[in-house]
């Protein structure tokens, strides 16, 4: 019996040691190229040394394979010695992929992230400060509000790529049933609420569904953080009033009492359980497929603004991880992908909006053939110059978003006290800002 126990102990030790050896195999190369300020002009590679850039995107394959393959081929031919390896991951998987690659010392060079995630990584020092690589002219070629979304402490952590601003989709059948005139749409949030109330009273259908996220604050001009991004600034009487109004609207049935993710919002609009939808133009693609009859009765108009009179963009960015082994070439490639010409071309194939100022002058963004898609595109593109991402320069944006969303859910779904919850969330957000991790 003792032999068995000894054997077991020895075996277990062996196994643990083996596993330690195996686990130690993944090195962690921490070297990052040193920046050389200035132009990202077409330099090719240093001393003809071949370079392979790993370029990651989110959910763009296989739909846009032709566009990207052509563009990458064009880039490679104008940059001898540079090879671009394009990989595409689902939205939910890209953060884990980035972490595991970084941990194993095989960081990609150019990565497509949304603004929230780019700010989160930027504030942790995981991304290159692109201001050290870009010329003034290059930095100014993007819409200022969108470019500044990922600027923290004067460091730009991302190049804006394709973007979207929300428009108001309207089910004209329901709106007409409620005795309203769709050709004279609401201009402000207050008017939209009145319309929603009338639709609910006359047809029994709710006005709209929405997700309970932190952007509800900036829409009404409530800043999430103070000027220098060191403390929470959303715990104000204005915020209390805004949330109280939202709670009352949910109780009335004017707004659906639900924290509705985008997929849920599609279901509600397709099923004619709501008359309005506030979202980007891509919403059309889903409605067209899921509810052709509703699609026929839908129009898109410019989104009514809240008290802040601003329109929020929702951008995808390109970032260069701090651990990229080819930072200069990576920034150059990211700048190429996001330049005006290529952004315009991508908008045409993907029905998205560009973040570069020059693109918007293309007739594609100013002329409408009367279709729902064209109406939505024109309506949203004309508000890009006023657009800003709502997490502008917020460090640890992901953590802060989660805290605010949880707080809103506690109040609006669970009936928690507004003031108490805002105090608790304020404390949590300040803790997030004060901790290093």
């Amino acid at each position, binding site marked *: 019996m003792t032999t068995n126990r000894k054997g077991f102990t020895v075996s277990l030790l062996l*196994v643990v040691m083996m*596993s330690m050896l195996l686990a130690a195999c993944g090195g962690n190369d921490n070297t990052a190229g040193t920046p050389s300020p200035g132009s990202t002009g077409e330099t090719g590679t240093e001393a003809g040394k071949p370079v392979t850039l790993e370029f990651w995107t989110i959910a763009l394959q296989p739909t846009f394979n032709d566009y990207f393959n052509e563009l990458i081929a064009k880039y490679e031919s104008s940059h001898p010695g540079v090879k671009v390896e394009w990989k595409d991951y689902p939205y939910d998987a890209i*953060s884990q992929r980035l*972490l595991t690659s970084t941990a194993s010392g095989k960081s990609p060079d150019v990565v497509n992230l949304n603004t929230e995630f780019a700010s989160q990584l930027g504030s942790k020092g995981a991304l290159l400060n692109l201001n050290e690589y870009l010329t003034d002219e290059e930095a100014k070629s993007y819409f200022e509000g969108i470019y500044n979304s990922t600027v923290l402490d004067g460091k730009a952590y991302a190049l804006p790529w394709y973007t979207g601003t929300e428009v108001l989709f309207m089910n004209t059948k329901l709106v007409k049933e409620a005795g309203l005139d769709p050709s004279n749409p609401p201009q402000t949030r207050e008017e939209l609420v009145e319309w929603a109330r009338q639709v609910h009273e006359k047809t029994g259908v709710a006005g709209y569904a929405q997700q309970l996220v932190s952007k509800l604050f900036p829409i009404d001009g409530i800043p999430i953080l103070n000027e220098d991004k060191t403390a929470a600034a959303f715990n104000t009487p204005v915020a209390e009033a805004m949330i109280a109004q939202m709670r009352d609207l949910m109780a009335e049935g004017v707004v659906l*009492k639900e924290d509705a993710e985008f997929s849920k919002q599609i279901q509600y609009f397709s*099923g004619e359980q709501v008359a309005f939808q506030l979202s980007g133009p891509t919403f059309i693609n889903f409605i067209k497929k899921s509810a052709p009859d509703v699609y026929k009765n839908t129009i898109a108009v410019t989104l009514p603004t809240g008290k802040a009179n601003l329109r929020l963009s929702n951008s995808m960015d390109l970032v260069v991880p701090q651990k990229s082994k080819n930072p200069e070439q990576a920034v150059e490639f990211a700048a190429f992908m996001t330049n005006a010409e290529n952004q315009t071309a991508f908008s045409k194939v993907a029905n998205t909006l560009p973040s570069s100022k020059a693109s918007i002058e293309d007739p594609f963004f100013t002329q409408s053939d009367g279709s729902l898609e064209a109406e939505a595109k024109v309506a949203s593109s004309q508000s890009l110059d006023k657009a800003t991402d709502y997490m502008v320069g917020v460090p640890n944006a992901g953590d802060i978003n*989660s805290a605010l969303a949880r707080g809103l*859910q506690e109040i609006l*779904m669970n009936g928690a006290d507004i003031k108490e919850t805002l105090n608790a969330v304020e404390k949590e957000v300040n803790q997030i800002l004060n901790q290093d991790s």
Partner: protein
Amino acid sequence: MYKAIRSESFAAWAFMAPGLLFLAVFTFWPIIYGIPLSLTDYSVITETHFVGLDNFTRAFQDHNFLISLWNSLVYVLVVPVIQIISILMAILVNSRIPGVKMFRAAYYIPVVTSMVAVALIWSWLLGNNGVVNYLLLKVGILSEQISWLSTSSTALYVLMFITMWKGLGYYMMLYLAGLQGIPADLYEAARVDGAGPLRLIIHVTLPLLRPHILFCTVISVMGAVRVFDEVYILTKGGPGTSTLTSSVYIFQKGLEQFNFGYASALGLIVSVMVAALSVLVFRLNRRGGVNTY
């Protein structure tokens, strides 16, 4: 004799080695590695610093973590319910009623169905305009629609029900194996002594199933405390923190917010809690079973 034992144990270890190696690399090592990690601010992407016990003190001041622990403990309430129903189901499908094979298969289907599919199906059934609301409104139990997964008073219990629904068949099979190991003459002897069906269950079946009950209860408690899939897919811990369980919170802190050091500390605290619960279950179930030798 000694040689025989040695060669036998060598063979046993040889057979176990591949599985053990796999376990060592993907289970034991991460657990061991989690201990030093929990004393740092490790985040994969930035420089790591030693922070001592800061993560642990932070954990016990973290309101959301304490709520998640509470929710996980509430989730354990699902364990006795699962065990009682699955034992009854096992007794049912162990009988010789017609069509029993169909029932066995039907009860087992949820077990082999992927949790993502199960969660999506239930989210449709439980949606505002889902079948559940429709039926309950039709028969007059409800007067208005309920958002089952978006209402704080119902969300956690609905998730527990889904966990139970999916797990029943699995435990039923384990209990069925146990039932089939109980000698028939024990039942016959009890019947001769005048025991009815209920007495047979209480005095023969349950005492002899005790090892199975112990095993099923332990893994069921572990599963309940570590529940993740259905919660993450259906509610992500919401609304608010109503369904925030410890695994979901650890996942959010680690893989969504890159606070791996802190997440490791939380993981260790939860592991200790699971170990304590398992010991408690062992203490409560020490006797019984069939001696097969």
